[in-house]
């Protein structure tokens, strides 16, 4: 999960941070807000569950041999037919909700982080090149970005998925297409400001190659705003995927993310069987709010205008 480390740098080894003073400042600044620390802990828990879901789940919810239809629609805390307890109840197929939520979370996090990571790569490359080369390329790219951002993300994702069909790869593709423009715009803006600075001129005087200029010298300096957007976009991607899966447009029924679990429980909600829908929703909420808290704090910490 190297991607996760990319998006939340304060989690890095504190011993390494001690040697690097700007990094230490960021970490200590971050820790000043108790709410942000809670968010970071929440995000860490969620990522832990996502990675180790198969090991910590009481049951493999997609192994037909492990689930028992006689145990369907049990309330939270009910005893299983074969012994054991369903702490969060079971769904209409007799699946343990706790395990289903763990696996769903795993998939949601994978889709969220995966799509954000790919979108960062695409958006950053386009944004950097657009700023660096300027001219007609720049105009064309930025016009496309403008047009795309003027349409709501749900709408674009809906159009794309109605064309692409269902599947994890297709959802990720749709989310990348939806998100890349935000990175491209932000990176271009920051890069343009950086290009005017002396170190860029020095690099040009030394006749460094374009590739080296862009990725070795320009890229590290546009990272701070990029990290903030990437964090928030992971949360947005998870929420969007959940909404699309809820509408029946995202993931196939065989690969239930949190959104699909919520959608499955929708029919039972009116009958008073709340847990099938509500509990995956709580997990989704916990995930999104944790990530947003981290992103919110990073925005303050990494904003040079607010630095003491």
């Amino acid at each position, binding site marked *: 999960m190297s991607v996760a480390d990319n998006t939340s740098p304060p989690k890095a080894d504190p011993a390494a941070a001690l040697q690097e003073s700007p990094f230490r400042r960021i970490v200590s600044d971050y820790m000043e807000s108790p709410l942000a620390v809670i968010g970071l802990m929440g995000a860490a828990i969620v990522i832990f569950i996502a990675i180790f879901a198969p090991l910590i789940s009481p049951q493999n919810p997609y192994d037909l041999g492990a689930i028992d239809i006689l145990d369907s629609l049990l309330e939270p805390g009910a005893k299983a037919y074969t012994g054991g307890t369903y702490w969060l109840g079971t769904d209409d197929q007799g699946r343990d909700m706790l395990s289903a939520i763990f696996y769903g979370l795993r998939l949601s996090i994978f889709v969220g982080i995966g799509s954000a990571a790919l979108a960062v790569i695409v958006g950053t490359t386009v944004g950097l090149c657009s700023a660096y080369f300027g001219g007609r390329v720049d105009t064309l790219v930025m016009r496309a970005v403008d*047009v795309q951002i003027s*349409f*709501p993300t749900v709408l674009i994702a809906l159009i794309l998925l109605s064309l692409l069909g269902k599947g994890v790869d297709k959802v990720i593709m749709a989310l990348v297409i939806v998100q890349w423009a935000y990175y491209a715009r932000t990176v271009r803006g920051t890069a343009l400001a950086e290009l005017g600075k002396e170190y860029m001129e020095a690099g040009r005087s030394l006749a460094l190659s374009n590739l080296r200029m862009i990725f070795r010298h320009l890229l590290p300096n546009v990272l701070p705003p990029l990290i903030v957007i990437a964090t928030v976009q992971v949360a947005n991607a998870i929420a969007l995927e959940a909404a699309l899966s*809820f*509408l029946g447009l995202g993931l196939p029924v065989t690969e239930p993310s949190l959104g699909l679990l*919520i959608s499955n429980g929708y029919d039972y*909600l009116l009958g008073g069987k709340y847990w099938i829908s509500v509990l995956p*929703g709580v997990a*989704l909420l916990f995930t999104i709010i944790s990530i947003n808290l981290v992103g919110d704090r990073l925005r303050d910490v990494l904003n040079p205008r607010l630095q003491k």
Partner: protein
Amino acid sequence: MSVFLIRRLMQSVIVLIVMSVIVFTGVFAIGDPVELLIAEDATEEDVALARQQMGLDKPIWQQYGIFVGNALSGDLGKSFVFRTPALDLLMQRLPATFELTIVALLMSIGIGVPLGIYAGLYPETLFARGIMAGSILGFSLPSFWVGLMLIMIFGVMLGWLPTTGRGETVDVFGIPISILTWDGFLHILLPAFNLSLLKMALIIRLTRAGMREVMLTDYVKFARAKGLSTRRVVFVHAMKNIMIPLVTVIGLEFGDLLAGSIVTETVFAWPGIGRLVVSSIGLLDRPVIVAYMLVIVTLFIVINLAVDIIYSLVDPRVRLLQQKS
């Protein structure tokens, strides 16, 4: 101004053409609707006949040509499922979507602006902190889940409000409106509130930030020194300057609400275009999907253009910027 307008219009036309090609070719590629629609015991001749009737036997570029020709004369094809023109289907459902969107927008302004003003004037109070925490929730909560919770609390547990459909409607100039009947009013409350939450959070934050900034300016201090009442200073002097960003955002967010209604309509079984397109995607009803995309993209282009024009009329600074560039 006119140069700007012409450039924007040309850009809009290009976007529309690109969209129509993408949507048409894409929709063409998503499976064969004939297999879904025809009876299982149909013979091969029946299938071929159905294919011919729907115009699916022609090559794709020819289908696109026919489609564009028809689209320009207002004919976007017949729904495979309903057997009626797709555009008519959309037009029948458009008023429901518009009503929901407008009521949601009014709710978010009506609740968001006063709360934002309060939070901006008294940022240290407990209630203001509560408002801000609530607005963070408004941003974070996935709207479809909030909708489910609203249904569970107000529909199932308390039984206060109906949770599906539009209820009773009255025709105003031939357009059915829900909110004018008591039953319809009750039906629109939950979906509209659900849809409004995200925008409400945004409006609260904008109003609060604007209020805090404006209250520190010299002209507000002067108005206070002159002995004007707080109410007059806030609602007349300060509000005028907050309105500019607020109006733009509200204009832009209207389109966002229109798109967000896809989710809300599905949750609350609100018979609008969003629900229609979601079910059409499930049924592979190509003409309806294509018609929806084109109608919504056109709507968006019109809305964005209108907002740009209004903005440049309201705020002279924007106009100057346009002339310089």
